[in-house]
């Protein structure tokens, strides 16, 4: 395909990635998923940069993507450390917990109604009928404290 169409396609993809990442950043409340969406925005930019680099026969595009990569790595390290700290002080990864910077006479945002957790049906292991059914406690099966 021609260079122009290639460029066109890549730019559209870059725009799509950026847009999806944007939606994710704005819409999600889990801090880690928000950060993930930000990384996705960076990916979209990288795609566009590489496309431009090839189009103009310039190494600059790829150079910038290398540095984007580097910076994304640093950013990930620090951001995740901070997120961990925030989690430790509040116990939740919810970004709506941190509203302390609001104006003094504004009411805090409070969740009005939360959807019910989808309780998954506990998956019982199918055992052959022979033999005594072993005892099992409900907690052990349902509780998934640690992944």
């Amino acid at each position, binding site marked *: 395909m021609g260079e122009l169409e290639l460029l066109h396609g890549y730019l559209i993809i870059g725009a*799509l990635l*950026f847009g999806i990442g944007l939606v*994710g950043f*704005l819409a999600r409340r889990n801090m880690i998923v928000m950060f993930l969406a930000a990384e996705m925005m960076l990916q979209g930019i990288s795609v566009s940069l590489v496309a431009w680099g090839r189009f103009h026969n310039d190494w600059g595009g790829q150079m910038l993507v290398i540095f984007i990569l580097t910076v994304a790595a640093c950013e990930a390290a620090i951001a995740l*450390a901070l997120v961990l700290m925030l*989690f430790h002080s509040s116990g939740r990864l919810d970004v709506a917990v941190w509203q302390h910077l609001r104006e003094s006479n504004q009411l805090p945002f409070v969740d009005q109604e939360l959807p019910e957790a989808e309780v998954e049906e506990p998956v019982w292991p199918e055992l052959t009928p022979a033999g005594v059914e072993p005892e099992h406690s409900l907690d052990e099966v349902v509780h998934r404290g640690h992944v």
Partner: protein
Amino acid sequence: MIPDLTPTQILTLTATVLTAVSLWLLLPRGGGRFARPIGVVLGLVALGLFVSRLSGLTNLGLGAEGLGAKIVFWVLAAITVVSAAGAVTMRSPVYCAIWFAMTLLGTAGLFLFQGAQFLGVATIVVYAGAILVTFLFVLMLAQSEGHAYYDRVSWEGLTSAAVGAVMIGVLTMVISDALAPTVPVDKADQAAAGEVVAKTAVVDPSTEEARAAEILSPQHMDHLGAQLFSKHLIAVEVAGTLLLVALVGAVAIAIQGKQMPKTAGGARHG
């Protein structure tokens, strides 16, 4: 002052709107058992519309030798975009991370398709291999009991989707307008309408031979290294320092956190 919409622009707008709606439906919301399937369907339709927007597909008859390349490109693009949508809309953060890994694979493939070999590999190694793994570690450390409530709701879903969609639409239109091949019929119309859209057809700035010598040369890595350590040497050094600083900073932050009191529901340190 809104310019008269050409059919391609109407197409773009429709695609944008559909993207918005599909994303909104896909985002975690309470209620509606059919939200997700409908969202998936609509998203695929939107994707299809975007694809049709591009001239590449309509010119399938531009030579069979380009067909393979085109198919590869479209597959990679589809993987990337679908994975991106998935990464953003999953209910469990771990699933989001996995889908993101898929997106990175697609992006790496796209880089390789462009001839950026180093970047393709670097994306996998650094991004998917290091950054994403760090994500997963943190998710492990910061897991709440069961599915947390904040994973089940989205914040201002409609507005966010709308904003994202508008952003995509605007970008697409800008890009298309800037890169549209010369269509003589449209140009006369637009000139008559008074919209001075200064579009000379964007010309390919360099020749294939030049490309083969530089970006697409077999000694791609040599050239890349030479460029990196000659023209961008200072930036490399600074980036190295930045990495060091980030490392030290992350450690410092994490150590501080060790002394903070444990709160209810806080995870134990690994």
